[in-house]
């Protein structure tokens, strides 16, 4: 048999099994290792080359089974059935062997070539437990590897086994015996299926079992088959017979119980406790008694949130000043340098006012961004985030949201795009839609530069407080929108909350820095690309028609601004520069500051320019407008992808209107109060 030179391997496993660490160890790419459920990217792919074979690795979402009940499971199942990987490596949290093996049973039934990777062996050893991997391997008919992903132990062996098993394409003959009445019906259905349906590589046994479980996806697939009626009535007859024979009203549950019965026995056979493990409350549980306490939970959460903001501003402040000084110097130096080299005026202007002025004004906030992501990384990695979802559950419930919605909303503080993608863990479509639609009002990191600029210029003493107020406003608007939309569009029951709480871990410096960097990198590449491109575009429009004074009202950009400015007058900033900044902010919120930086590039500092054109009230109104007026293009794209065109359009129209209304209201009311 010819040697395969290319393999596709799928990585499956429960959430929190260390699957992502294995993925990183195998492929060497840096990916986010979420310590709590709710961070899902649809498919992470990587590759490595070993022993002359190119292996492509696909990281499936963390799943507990292969039913049709959750989007993650459907995605995983779809890939396994249609993506036809050459091998599936299941990463197992060995401290929780029985439960993790449930997924393995489902995979065995799917009849895919399988390898088991028992991970977290260090924690097992610490608990004084040993696993008989040989017996496990023999019973299930699959190769078993042991690893400690966090220390990169066992990875070499894993690679060897992957290469070897990938060549063999061997499917385990293991079949779980469901007991006589069930097995009989399965066999009967198999015969019917084999003669009536083009199986297309599906296992007939697996299909028969799915039909008995009344799996909606399989039923839907069968509708296209000509012999559908015959099959469905055979299934009906089978289930009726089984229901009476098993005295159980739910065949699916009966099968689940049978699986666990088997797993119980298997676990007893392969697990050996070397030393007696006492039943004492472990540290995580003790912490949870405090953190999840009915009265302490929310206050603790608020304190942590407030602490995070303090960290971002008191630590960030001096660093921001440093970066600011650097960029002013850089702007002057490069302009002088360009002129000295004989470059024409316009090149010097492009470099100093356009590129450096524009990008610099955004990068100046890098310290704040880094600290924000650092804080999020610490909260995630320590395991606190999952608890926060619980603490907020009752509150979320009152707002018509699911406790699990909390995690995508928290992610929104970093960036709305992955936050919207994270809504995939919500099982109910309506829960998902609602969480997606309110997400843009959660103030993302791209808006932070706007706040820091204006708050720094007008509310220097109370910077932290002012910015905090904007974040709170965003949350309030999100909540209000949730209540409103729920009443308008979705009158329904909230899906109940169940979530796994991973043990608390002291985050390793290494991993939080990686996570902080991963996310900040997105911010930087955005600065490098979209913002740079936009800034150059702005500079161009500001310098044309030829000969016009840079960024003056007579330039093209001034023309655009003057067109839009009247709309903004009631909100206190009806001048063209503000209009232009907001207009380009649609591309990326950071661009608002970048555009202002470019337009006022000629002046001493942006802050001074702002101070002379805005007032405290119009500044606050402007910040409110930036917070709400429209999701950035990337977010609109994400909404469209996850929810469809109509919802994306509604989202845009709604936020434009709301943003304008709020900004105007705030400004006008403040004016009235001043007059009084």
């Amino acid at each position, binding site marked *: 048999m010819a040697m395969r030179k290319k393999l596709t391997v799928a990585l499956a496993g429960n959430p929190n099994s260390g699957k992502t660490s294995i993925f990183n160890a195998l492929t060497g790419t840096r990916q986010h290792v979420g310590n709590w459920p709710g961070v899902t990217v649809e498919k992470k792919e990587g590759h490595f080359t070993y022993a002359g074979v190119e292996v492509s690795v696909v990281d499936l979402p963390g799943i*507990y*089974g292969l*039913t049709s*009940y*959750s989007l993650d499971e459907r995605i995983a199942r779809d890939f396994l059935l249609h993506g036809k990987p050459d091998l599936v490596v299941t990463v197992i*949290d060995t*401290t*929780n062997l*029985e*439960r993790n093996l*449930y*997924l393995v049973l489902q995979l065995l039934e799917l009849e895919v070539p399988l390898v088991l990777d028992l991970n977290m062996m260090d924690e097992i050893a610490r*608990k004084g437990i040993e696993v008989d991997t040989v017996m496990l391997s023999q019973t299930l008919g699959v190769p078993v590897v042991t690893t400690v992903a966090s220390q990169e132990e066992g990875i070499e062996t894993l690679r060897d086994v992957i290469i070897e098993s990938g060549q063999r394409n061997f499917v385990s003959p293991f079949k779980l015996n469901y007991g006589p009445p069930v097995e009989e019906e399965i066999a009967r259905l198999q015969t019917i299926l084999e003669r009536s349906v083009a199986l297309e590589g599906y296992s007939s046994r697996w299909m028969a079992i799915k039909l008995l479980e*009344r799996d909606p996806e399989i039923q839907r697939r069968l509708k296209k088959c000509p012999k559908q009626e015959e099959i469905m009535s055979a299934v009906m007859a089978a289930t009726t017979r089984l229901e009476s024979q098993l005295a159980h009203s*739910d065949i*699916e*549950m009966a099968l*689940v*119980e049978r699986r*666990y*019965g088997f797993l*119980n026995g298997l676990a007893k056979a392969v697990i050996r406790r070397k030393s007696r*493990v006492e*039943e004492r*409350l472990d540290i*995580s*549980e003790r912490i*949870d*008694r405090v953190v*999840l*306490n*009915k009265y302490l*939970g929310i206050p603790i959460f608020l304190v942590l949130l407030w602490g995070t903001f303090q960290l971002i501003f008191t630590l960030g402040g001096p660093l921001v000043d440093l970066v600011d000084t650097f960029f002013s110097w850089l702007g002057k130096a490069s302009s002088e340098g360009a002129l000295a080299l004989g470059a024409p005026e316009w090149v010097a202007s492009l470099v100093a006012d356009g590129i450096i002025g524009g990008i610099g004004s955004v990068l100046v906030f890098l310290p704040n961004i880094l600290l924000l992501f650092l804080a999020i990384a610490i909260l995630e990695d320590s395991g606190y985030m*999952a*608890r926060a979802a*619980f*603490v907020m*559950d*009752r509150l979320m*419930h009152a707002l018509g949201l699911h*406790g699990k919605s909390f995690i995508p909303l928290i992610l929104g503080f970093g960036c709305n795009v992955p936050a919207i993608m994270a809504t995939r863990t919500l*099982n109910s479509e309506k829960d998902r839609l609602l969480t997606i639609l309110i997400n843009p009002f959660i103030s993302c990191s791209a808006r932070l530069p706007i706040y820091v600029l204006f708050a720094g210029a007008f509310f220097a003493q109370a910077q932290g407080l002012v910015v905090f107020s904007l974040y709170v406003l965003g949350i309030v608007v999100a909540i209000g929108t949730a209540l409103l939309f729920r009443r308008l569009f979705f009158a329904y029951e909230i899906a*109940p*909350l*169940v*979530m*796994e*709480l*991973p*043990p608390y871990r002291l985050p390793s410096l290494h991993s939080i820095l990686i996570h902080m960097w991963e996310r900040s990198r997105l911010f930087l590449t955005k600065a490098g690309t979209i913002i740079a491109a936009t800034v150059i575009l702005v500079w161009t429009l500001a310098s044309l028609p030829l000969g016009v004074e840079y960024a003056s009202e007579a330039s093209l950009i001034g023309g655009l601004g003057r067109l839009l400015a009247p709309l903004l007058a009631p909100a206190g900033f009806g001048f063209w520069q503000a209009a232009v900044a907001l207009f380009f902010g649609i591309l990326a919120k950071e661009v608002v500051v970048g555009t202002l930086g470019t337009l006022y590039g000629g002046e001493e500092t942006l802050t001074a320019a702002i101070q002379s054109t805005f007032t405290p009230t119009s500044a606050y109104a402007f910040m409110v407008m930036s917070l709400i007026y429209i999701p950035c293009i990337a977010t609109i794209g994400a909404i469209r992808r996850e929810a469809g065109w109509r919802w994306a359009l509604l989202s845009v129209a709604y936020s434009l209107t709301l943003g304008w209304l709020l900004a105007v209201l705030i400004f006008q009311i403040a004016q009235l109060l001043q007059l009084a």
Partner: protein
Amino acid sequence: MFPLSLATSGQWVQICELRGGRGLRVKLSQMGLYPGQVVQVVLNDGGPIILGRDGFQLGLGRGMAHQILVKPIA
């Protein structure tokens, strides 16, 4: 037999019956809460309920805890 929501913090219980829709019952089972399984109630003080068993911890909303019938284990 009584609903899980009435169990006291620290108590060990065995799951007897899962009520609710099929999706919910299957999901709970997949996560390890299936009839016959023994777990400890780590926390139940009126808020969400935390269950634990050497290895993992699971949090449940109260509504869900109402749907799970358990019996105490000595």
